């Protein structure tokens, strides 16, 4: 059983595992290797590690140059910088020529609570999802993070993956099947479906447990691949439940919620509630959970959305004290 550790630590560990078996792996970082955990690879393979300094645009294109020379280039920094500071480099130098660059970004969502808005990547899924040729991943726990890193290394072509900062509880057995583009069902239920990604998968499970105690059976699906999104699982959820809740540590605009709504509006219109950051910037907080609660992105918020979908609105909304709603 894998212990509860930050997914970024698993990323670093898996890079070392990859590096041992494959001399084509090179790793680049924009001077945050301790944070992204590429430092583990640096220690194991100093010759194949390149700290590019605080210059993300240059780093992404260097990674592209490596890939054009036959390497498998992992490039890491924080999600906000990978997706926005170096956005056009990702688009034109990596995705357009379909180069074998794997951008693995940490500090996704509000997970870096203390540093506040400048370091919280809340738009990366929407941005990266809109770029052709790019596979976009957002794994939830240590077990699937390792499998996701191995999967993108093995899959030819460009990929973007986001990871959180805080320890993630283990949600899976080691032998769980992980396939890019295929959601993992974590819990069965036909009253409604919660499609969650990244850190919000754990919150979805907590919400589903609570809902079950009140006679509402919620299906929980781990949407670790934002692109290509698992259309079949979304359509099945729409056809066999009363409604869908999406849950993401990301702006509700354009990310997982957007992807699910795009599929449904064209193929099978259904009721959807999007749980996520409601198109605003967050704030600093001492504690990640405090932020999730304040911005109504936690298990309680998912539960509230469930009550709305099930038509039993106010009676069951758990009491959320005014103190928790105040600015953290």
């Amino acid at each position: 059983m894998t212990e509860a550790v930050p997914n970024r630590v698993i990323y670093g560990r898996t890079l070392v595992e990859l590096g041992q078996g494959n001399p084509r792996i090179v790793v680049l970082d924009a001077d945050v290797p301790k944070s992204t955990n590429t430092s583990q690879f640096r220690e194991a393979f100093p010759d194949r590690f390149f700290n590019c300094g605080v210059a993300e645009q240059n780093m992404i294109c260097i990674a592209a140059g490596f890939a054009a020379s036959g390497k498998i280039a992992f490039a890491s920094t924080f999600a906000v910088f990978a997706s926005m500071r170096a956005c056009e480099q990702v688009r034109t130098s990596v995705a357009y020529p379909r180069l074998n660059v794997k951008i693995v970004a940490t500090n996704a969502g509000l997970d870096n609570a203390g540093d506040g808005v400048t370091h919280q990547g809340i738009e990366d899924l929407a941005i990266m999802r809109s770029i052709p040729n790019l596979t976009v991943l957002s794994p939830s726990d240590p077990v699937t993070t390792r499998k996701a890193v191995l999967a993108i290394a093995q899959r030819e072509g460009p990929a973007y993956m986001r990871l959180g900062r805080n320890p993630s509880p283990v949600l899976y057995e080691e032998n769980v099947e992980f396939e890019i583009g295929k959601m993992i069902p974590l819990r069965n239920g036909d009253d409604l479906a919660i499609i969650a990604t990244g850190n919000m998968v754990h919150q979805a499970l907590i919400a589903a447990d609570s809902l079950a105690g009140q006679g509402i059976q919620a299906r929980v699906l781990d949407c670790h691949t934002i692109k290509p999104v698992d259309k079949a699982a979304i359509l099945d959820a729409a056809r066999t439940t009363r409604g869908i809740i999406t849950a993401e540590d990301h702006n509700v605009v354009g990310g997982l919620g957007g992807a699910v709504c795009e599929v449904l509006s064209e193929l099978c219109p259904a009721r959807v509630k999007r749980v996520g950051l409601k198109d605003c910037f967050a704030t600093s907080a001492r504690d990640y959970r405090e932020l999730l609660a304040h911005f109504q992105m936690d298990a309680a918020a998912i539960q509230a959305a469930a009550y709305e979908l099930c038509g039993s609105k106010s009676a069951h909304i758990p009491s959320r004290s005014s103190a928790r709603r105040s600015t953290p």
Partner: protein
Amino acid sequence: MRLEECPHPVPLIGAALDPMKTETNPRHLQRKACLLRRHIIRMVGVGKTGHIGGSCSCADIVAALYFSVMNIDPAQPDDPARDRFILSKGHAALVLYAALAERGFFPIGELDRVKQAGAMLQGHPDRLRTPGVEANTGSLGQGLSLANGMALAAKLDASNHRVYVILGDGEINEGQVWEAAMFGAFHGLDNLTATLDRNGLQAMGPTKTRLDTGPLRDKWLAFGWHVVEIDGHDMAQILDAFAQAKAHHGSPTLILANTVKGKGLSFAENNPGFHNGMMTQEQYDLAGRELDAALAALDDPT
């Protein structure tokens, strides 16, 4: 206008030269550069815009690279040991396409279909569509960073191949170029040679009145580069600069090439209107006559 209708059809191949053979005779290389310019005006044609100025300003440098300096084999465009060329100022794609076609990477007839929907030759270079193209450039400022990656990869693999880049002097307004310059020098990438096509004009006018990037020599020296300044239309100086770059160890080389935008076409020389300009029929005819005259003057059966 269709190419078949052009009043001055371009000879389809440089008859005096074997496209598979590299050249050391400066006159032959000058002739090649003239041929590249001939292809450029033919690809642009009459009444359509095309990046004539910046393609012609670096035609001599591109001719030197493709027909003398670089170790490349059109029959093996994916050979890991090949030298790499990145046209960072990707808007000058026409000169690259002309060189690749003349060098035998694809049939010269492809030049006739440049920018057509679905064509091998896109408005800016596309490595997935065009044999011999190494990087998708055109968004200014990214080529030197790509070259850093390729040069580091060569070092990592203990391969002796070299990486060549052409930068525009308007392009170096982009901050990423300076990130890349710091990085290349810091890592001692002496297998990397960048040529700055200093034609003095960017899209809307003189570089000096937009964002003056001078003093260029001092700047690149301060960034840790080996700098060689030349007349970018003097073939002997161009060849000598590349030789100096190859012989230099410990840092990357910047060839500061002073050039004339629109070189070889009297109406386009130093004329910012021909950054992405349009030729009249009269200008097109004149360009043909001028380049034919230049070719004739360089004719040398030896």
